[in-house]
């Protein structure tokens, strides 16, 4: 987005196939992976597998607002687009109805003017939102942004990504209740805010754009075997070993 590439994992390595991708994500989601890690990886894999420019996992807070907790990048263009999606457009409708919704800037501009304007600014046209469901209640949406509508088979894969995101968020505990879900949502939104603040600190410290800073953080988390949330927390607390590791990651990247 915004001249920052598609924010994906880079063209050097061939994209994983559908099966490998889902095996990897299911393993992570069911082995108590930190939800933010799962959502970030899922977003990256989604843009590798599907003909879209950006992906976000958005969860609904108790106030009905949608927060992008996993994103395929961290550019201002993408973040502003997601903010427009929180305020209007298919995301909220998708959560409210529990059904997938598609918005096309060329035909829905009157209905969702802010979203349409933001899409136009990014040179994109279509947003698909697929529901994250807890039983039959919408608790979030997987948003995919591209320059055309997805065909039926791509939509099936997209809904499978959304189901996986719901699995990572809700887990399958028998005792799972509304409070436990509310607590996990609250914690996930806070963890994502911390990650964004960490992106800002690293962008400033190493003179990177936000996408570059996010990539640096992800590479470091992977090599240090830390969750994104733990590394982000260490960064915002200015714990020096972690920041030193980020410096080293520059050479590998």
């Amino acid at each position, binding site marked *: 987005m915004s001249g920052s590439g598609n924010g994906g994992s880079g063209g050097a390595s061939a994209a994983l196939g559908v099966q490998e991708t889902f095996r990897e994500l299911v393993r992570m989601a069911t082995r108590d992976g930190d939800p933010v890690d799962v959502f970030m990886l899922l977003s990256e894999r989604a843009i590798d597998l599907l003909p879209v420019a950006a992906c976000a996992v958005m969860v*609904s807070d108790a106030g009905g607002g949608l927060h992008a907790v996993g994103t395929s990048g*961290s550019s201002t263009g993408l973040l502003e687009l997601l903010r427009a999606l929180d305020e209007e457009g298919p995301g909220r409708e998708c959560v409210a109805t529990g059904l997938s919704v598609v918005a096309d800037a060329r035909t829905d501009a009157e209905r969702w003017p802010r979203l349409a304007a933001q899409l136009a600014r990014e040179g994109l046209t279509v947003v698909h939102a697929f529901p994250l469901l807890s039983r039959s209640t919408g608790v979030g949406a997987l948003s995919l942004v591209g320059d055309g509508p997805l065909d039926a088979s791509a939509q099936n894969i997209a809904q499978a990504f959304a189901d996986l995101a719901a699995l990572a968020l809700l887990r399958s505990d028998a005792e799972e209740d*509304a409070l436990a879900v509310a607590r996990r949502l609250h914690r996930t939104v806070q963890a994502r805010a911390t990650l*964004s603040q960490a*992106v800002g*600190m690293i*962008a400033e410290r190493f003179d990177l754009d936000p996408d570059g800073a996010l990539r640096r953080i992800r590479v470091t988390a992977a090599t240090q075997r830390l969750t994104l949330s733990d590394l982000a927390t260490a960064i915002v*607390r200015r714990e020096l070993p972690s920041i030193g590791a980020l410096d080293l990651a520059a050479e590998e990247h």
Partner: protein
Amino acid sequence: VVGEGRWRRIADLLQEAAAGSEVAPAVAEVVAQLLHVEHVSLVLVVGGLPVTTAGSSDLAVMLCERQLALGEGPAVEALRTGEPAQFDDLTAPESLERAPVFISEARAAGVGAMFAFPLRIGGAHVGVLTGHRAGAGPLSHEQHSDALIVSTLASIALLHAEPDGTLAPGGERIDHATVLDGVVQVATGMVAEQLGVPMIEALVRMRAHAFAADGRLEEVARRIIDRELRLER
């Protein structure tokens, strides 16, 4: 997941209680009402140090200060971990293990249960709110869920406070979408790094700049990320 109505209702309660008066005591009042607790105290992090800022009673203030002095107790735990700290039953051995000196004192003062919730926006630590009551027993699910909502909204209300701690009547609506916005968070991190200040101070400064320049916080944030604007130390 609780509906939008509840969030709005709690935001309205806060806005009403704080309009034209000091935010911190207003937060304490609303929390006492929502959580059905007799006493509430509020600690704010000022220049990196926790300071007791409001208490609904002398007992609440005293217990809050004892925690800060001893470096243990629910409020201290929530400040340290950034997660809620529940002490459902102060007579339980686990409670005593977590904070031996403080819990003995609180029990002697007739407290049965204590609940602390951090006030923060990601890594920007605003403070902690603590409720306590004479009877032991956990918060109900609804009270707990309200506590999570009010802790986010209170963090924002405190951020909106004027330098004298009051909320201007008819001023900004308490709106979580703006403060939790991704662009705002990235810019907050950049400012914190540029100025070498805590995250919360970076957020306060960006807000002050937006307010003085009559602009929106998101626009200020975008200009900071695009390196068109640099806030001065």
